[in-house]
């Protein structure tokens, strides 16, 4: 009595455009209904776009030292500088850099580091999670034991260790360019465990399902099975973790910068800007700290809120 194809809307769905499908989906429906989700998405979009198009939006390029005029230093927001008469929307920092421009460019660095670190952690975590879940045995033991060891060690220390080691192995002349990549690897490496655990758990469940068994029986390689069959099933928890990790990575970058192992001051990230700005908290140049801090807060908060909403909407079991 149940072997007949389901009646109803199924044939219609196939004809709809992908956009239509998305607009009709439950996700989009709950999304529309949640003002928090809508607002945070808009904020994230604005911030990401303005970071991506920073060279077009920013009045100056703060990464080009030749364009700076030191005499513009410490200009308050919207007030003309006492020496040069120049006015800056959000003021200038100690180097005479336009704070608005540094925030846009700094966000670029922060987002780049954050996204790249999360992608790195994701690829690493998913790969190791899939392998250990699917292959099992010694491979699994080694991978998951490593994960346990790393979990017992707080991410910030892991990142510091990796940063130290990587710095030592990098040839001196490349160190400056490498700083950002080292940062990405350091944060990414301290973050993969979560992905691996979730993916491994899901793989263990999926692997026993009949369709995977069937795929194996018709001779699909393990690689194809993992990629085509298991991976799509673990994407939604991975998406949620990735979102939350992104916020964490941005904060981690800021913290590492505070400890002096972050982005170089000539190419400041939001974290570096905050580190620089906190030195001016008592001196009255509040804008050097406040604006980057508010930007960081807004960015991290929106991403977090989005992740939170995604978690509820997709309702995965985050184990």
């Amino acid at each position, binding site marked *: 009595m149940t072997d007949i194809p389901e009646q109803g809307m199924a044939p219609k769905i196939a004809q709809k455009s992908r956009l239509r499908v998305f607009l009709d989906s439950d996700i989009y429906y709950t999304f529309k209904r949640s003002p*928090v989700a809508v607002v945070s998405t808009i904020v994230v979009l604005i911030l990401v776009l303005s970071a991506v198009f920073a060279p077009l939006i920013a009045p100056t390029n703060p990464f080009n030292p030749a364009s700076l005029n030191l005499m513009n230093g410490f200009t308050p927001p919207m007030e003309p500088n006492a020496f040069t008469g120049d006015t800056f929307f959000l003021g200038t920092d100690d180097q005479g850099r336009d704070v608005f421009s540094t925030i846009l460019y700094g966000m670029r660095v922060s987002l780049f580091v954050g996204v790249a670190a999360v992608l790195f952690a994701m690829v690493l975590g998913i790969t190791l999670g899939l392998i250990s879940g699917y292959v099992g045995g010694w491979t699994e033991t080694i991978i998951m*034991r490593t994960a346990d*060891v790393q*979990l*017992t*060690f*707080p*991410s*910030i*220390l892991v990142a510091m*260790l990796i940063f*130290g*080691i990587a*710095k*030592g192995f990098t040839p001196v002349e490349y160190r400056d360019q490498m700083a950002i990549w080292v940062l990405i690897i350091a944060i990414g490496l301290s973050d993969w465990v979560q992905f691996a655990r979730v993916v491994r758990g899901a793989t263990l469940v999926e692997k026993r399902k009949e369709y995977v068994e069937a795929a194996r029986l018709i001779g699909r390689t393990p690689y194809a099975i993992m990629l085509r069959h298991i991976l799509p099933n673990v994407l939604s928890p991975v998406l949620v973790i990735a979102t939350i990790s992104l*916020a*964490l990575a941005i*904060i981690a970058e*800021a*913290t590492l910068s*505070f*400890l002096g192992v972050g982005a170089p001051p000539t190419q400041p990230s939001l*974290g570096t800007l*905050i580190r620089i700005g*906190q030195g001016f*908290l*008592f001196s009255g140049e509040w804008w050097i700290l406040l604006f980057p*801090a508010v930007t*960081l*807060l807004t960015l*991290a*908060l929106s991403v*977090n*809120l989005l992740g*939170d909403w995604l*978690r509820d909407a997709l309702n995965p*079991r*985050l*184990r």
Partner: protein
Amino acid sequence: MLAYIIRRMGQSALVLLIVGLVAFSMFRFVGDPIDNMLGQERTAEDIERLREQLGLDQPFAVQYFRFLEGAVQGNFGVSYRQGRPVSEILLERAPATLELAAVSGILAIVFGIALGVFTAIRRNGFTANFIMSASLIGVSLPTFLIGILLIYIFSVELGWLPSFGRGETVDIGGWSTGFLTESGLKALILPAITLGLYQMTLIMRLVRSEMLEVLRQDYIRFARARGLKDRAINFRHALKNTMVPVITVIGLQLGAIIAFAIITETVFQWPGVGLLFINAIQFVDIPVMAAYLMLISVMFVGINLIVDILYFFIDPRLRVDRAGGH
């Protein structure tokens, strides 16, 4: 259970060994301690002589082996900077960090669980939603910034609480405690909040999501169907089951608290091992750095062990040697 603990100990020893190796390999890149130990008027000859004395001219493996040899006997060497046995310095500093971590940990656990349960039970209430959103602010700002802002508001502007240090301490059998003096307690407030806030948010969110998960379970529905009181369902049935996964994470978070104390201690000049570590990095005090990392790993391993043992008490399914079966 004994066999289990012994196996865990074995694994822990391995972890320690690895941590030691990693830690040690890091030191080569932190910098050179020599310049800090010699004054402005040193010569290249002085540098060579000191390097030899400290064994820094030896290959890395030899240095590591020497370190392990000493560490096994509880001897972590002598601090380059202070010229005193490292174990003595660590013991002197440990109470400050442990007291701070304990207070922050308790704050984080108590408020984290309470708020997590509250937001899970009232999952659609206004207050719960507000707490959930507000809690995100706590994880969206770097810890150091929160600390600096707290100092600015409560010490500089309002003048209510001290801006740094531990206040007055009382020495009880080698353990210096800040719990017994008013200034000691006052000095604890800001650092403890700074340190505990992030972990509190994490625990709260975890408790909430686990609790929501548990509240969906059949046995909770069954408990409701038996007409049990809400309080019994939420706290006796749901919370207990929620705690099983939460305890692991809390264990890890306690470890993280001790590690994150590095930042809080730097901001508040809290005289604990974290500040010692940061200072050691600055002065390339290798013995202190190595001992700190070992100490931290030992603590983590210990915490994990305690967590594992706690499981035996909470989850009867793990008590396999208990009579029964089918």
